[in-house]
C-alpha cells in the first residue's frame, strides 16, 4: 500500500474522478470509460480467482458471454427490462461458475489452465451452434439503453453512471467479502493448501465459491458489455477477449483490487493507440508486455508503482513487503514431481 495516502482517501479520489469525468472529457471518451467499468468488473473477478486464490482461468470470456447472452436474449426475445436481465445474467453465470469451480477442484495448476483455455476457444462455436436461441453468426441486436423518463440525461451518460455504480458496488461487495474469513481462506489455500486444510479450511467450499463469485462478476460485466454495444455476436466473445482480460489483470497487477481498475484502463485504451500503427500492433505490444512484465514487474503496474513509491518515501531500497502473487501462487500450483 502506498504509505502516502490512506485507503479511504484514495477511494474517495477515485470516486470523485469517475463522477466528474463526464464534465471534462468529450462524449466519445465517456463512452470508452463505460467499457473501462465493464472490464474492471470482469478483471476484478479474475484477480479474486487467480490472484487471491491461485486458480488460473484463461477462459473468463465464456462467463462474460453467458452473462451477455442471457441479458441480450431476455431483452431481445422477451422484452424484459435490464434491471431484471442483469441480475439473472449474474445468477446464470454464477451458477455456471460454481459448476466449473467443482470441476476445477479436480484439476491442478496447468490442467486448469488447459481446460479453461479450451473453454475460451470453444465459446464462440457454442454460440454459433444454438442458432435458434442465440441468433447464430448474426447475433442479436438490442435497443440502446435510455435513461428513465424522470431523469433528463442522454442514454450514454446514464449508462456511464449506472455502469460505474454497479462497478463500485462490485468492488465494495468484493472488498467486504475478502476482508475477513473468506479472503484469509482464499489466500491460505493459494499459499499453502496443505497447511490450510490442516487448519480446517474447507477447500471445496472456498475454492468453488471463489469461482462462483468470479463468474458472477464476469456475468455482470458481460451483460453490461451487451447493453453498451447494443449488440452481441459470437465475435464479441472470442478467445481474444479471455486473453485480454488476463492481460488486463497481469498488467494492472493481481495483488490488489486497484489492479483491476488500472488493467481495465490499459486494455481499453492501449489498443486504440496501438491500432494507429498497425491492425496487429495491439497483439504484439500485449504479448511483449506480458513477457517483460513477468521478467521484471510480476506484480503488475500497481505493484510496481507501489514499490517505487515506497522506495522514494523511505529513500532506501526496500524488498517487496508482500510476496508477489506469482511466488505465492506457485505453492498452490506446484508442478507434479515423480516419486
Amino acid at each position: 500500500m502506498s504509505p502516502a495516502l490512506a485507503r479511504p482517501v484514495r477511494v474517495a479520489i477515485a470516486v470523485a474522478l469517475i463522477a466528474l469525468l463526464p464534465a471534462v472529457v468529450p462524449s466519445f471518451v465517456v463512452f470508452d470509460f463505460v467499457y473501462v467499468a465493464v472490464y474492471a468488473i470482469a478483471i476484478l473477478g479474475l484477480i479474486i480467482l487467480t490472484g487471491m486464490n491461485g486458480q488460473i482461468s484463461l477462459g473468463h470470456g465464456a462467463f462474460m458471454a453467458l452473462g451477455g447472452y442471457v441479458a441480450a436474449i431476455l431483452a431481445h426475445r422477451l422484452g424484459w427490462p435490464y434491471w431484471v436481465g442483469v441480475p439473472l445474467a449474474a445468477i446464470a453465470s454464477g451458477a455456471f461458475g460454481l459448476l466449473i469451480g467443482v470441476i476445477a477442484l479436480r484439476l491442478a495448476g496447468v490442467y486448469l489452465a488447459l481446460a479453461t483455455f479450451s473453454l475460451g476457444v470453444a465459446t464462440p462455436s457454442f454460440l454459433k451452434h444454438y442458432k435458434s436461441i442465440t441468433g447464430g453468426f448474426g447475433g442479436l441486436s438490442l435497443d440502446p439503453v435510455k435513461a428513465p423518463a424522470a431523469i433528463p440525461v442522454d442514454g450514454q451518460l446514464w449508462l456511464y453512471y449506472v455502469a460505474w455504480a454497479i462497478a463500485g458496488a462490485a468492488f465494495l461487495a468484493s472488498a467486504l467479502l475478502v476482508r475477513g474469513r473468506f479472503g484469509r481462506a482464499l489466500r491460505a489455500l493459494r499459499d499453502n493448501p496443505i497447511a490450510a486444510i490442516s487448519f480446517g479450511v474447507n477447500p471445496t467450499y472456498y475454492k468453488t465459491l471463489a469461482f462462483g463469485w468470479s463468474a458472477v462478476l464476469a456475468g455482470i460485466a458481460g451483460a453490461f458489455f451487451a447493453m453498451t454495444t447494443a449488440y452481441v455476436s459470437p465475435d464479441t466473445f472470442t478467445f481474444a477477449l479471455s486473453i485480454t482480460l488476463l492481460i488486463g489483470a497481469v498488467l494492472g497487477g493481481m495483488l490488489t483490487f486497484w489492479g483491476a481498475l488500472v488493467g481495465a484502463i490499459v486494455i481499453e485504451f492501449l489498443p486504440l493507440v496501438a491500432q494507429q500503427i498497425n491492425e496487429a500492433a495491439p497483439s504484439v505490444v500485449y504479448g511483449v508486455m506480458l513477457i517483460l512484465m513477468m521478467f521484471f514487474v510480476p506484480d503488475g503496474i500497481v505493484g510496481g508503482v507501489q514499490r517505487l513509491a515506497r522506495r522514494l518515501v523511505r529513500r532506501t531500497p526496500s524488498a517487496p513487503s508482500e510476496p508477489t502473487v506469482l511466488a505465492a501462487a506457485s505453492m498452490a500450483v506446484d508442478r507434479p514431481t515423480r516419486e
Partner: protein
Amino acid sequence: MGWAVQLFAQQVVSGLATGSIFASLALALVLIYRSMGVINFAQGELAMFSTYVAWQLVQMGVPMLGAFFITIVVAFAGGVVLERVVIRPVERAPQLTLVIVTLGLFTAINGLAGWIWGYIVKPFPSPFPSTPLQVGGVAFSAQDVGIIVVSFVTLGLVTLFFQKTKLGLAMRAAAIYPEQSRVLGIRVGWMLALGWGLASLVGAISGIMIAPVVFLDPNMMQSLIVYAFAAAVLGGVESPIGAVVGGLILGVVLNLLGTYVPAIGDELRLAAALAIIVAVLVIKPSGLFGRATVQRV
C-alpha cells in the same frame, strides 16, 4: 464393396489424417511438458508462423520440398532461440508465470504474423497430388494418405532419435533427472532448448500439413491446439506414445461423429474436444498411457 463400407473406410482414413496432425502437435506439447512440466500455449502459434514462412518461400519461387526443409530448420532454430531468450529467465519460476509467458508468446506471435502477412485468409498449395488413390476399390484422397505418411515418418524419426541416439538419450535424461544429468556432464539448459527446437519443428510439419485443408490465417491453429490438448490429455500428458494414440483416436472419432451424427456439426466438434479434455482430467487425469503423478508434500 458396398457404398456404406466405402464411406466408412474413407471417413476412417480421413480421420486418421486429421488425427495424425493432432498427434504431431500433441507430441510437440508433450515433448516440452515432459522436460519442463510446462504446457506451451504458444505451440500452435509457432506452427502457424512456421507455416507462413513456408508459404513465403513458395511465393518466392522455392519448390515445395525445398521450402518444407528450409522451414523446419528455421522452426527448429526459432524454438531454440525462444527457449534461450524467453523461457530461460523464468525456467524456475512458478507455474502461473510460465503459463503467462507462453500466453505472451501466443499473443505476440499471433500479432506478428498478422502484422507481416495480414489477416486475409490465404490458400496454401497442397504438397500432394489431387488425384485420389485407389486401394481395394475405395478411393482415398492423396492428401489424406500423404498427411498420414508424412506424420508417421516424422513420429518414427522422433522416436528413433530419442531411442537410438546419444543426444536423444541425454535429452531424456535431462528431462527426467536434471540434477543427476548435470553431474554427469549433460548441459541440461541446452537440452531443454533443443527440446523446444524439436517441438517447434514437429509443430511446423503439422502446420504445413494442415494448411492446405484449413487455409492460412493467423488464427488457423487456435482450434487445432485445443484438439492437440485433447489428444495429449487423452493419451496422458506425460506420454509421447499416448499423444500419438490419443491424436489418432480423436481424429477418427471426431470424423465419424461428424459423418454419422449430423447434430454434432462442425461447431460442436470443438465442444466435443472440450468435453473429452474435462472428462479425462476429471475421471482419469493420467490418461491412457500416462502414469499417475504424486505431489510431494
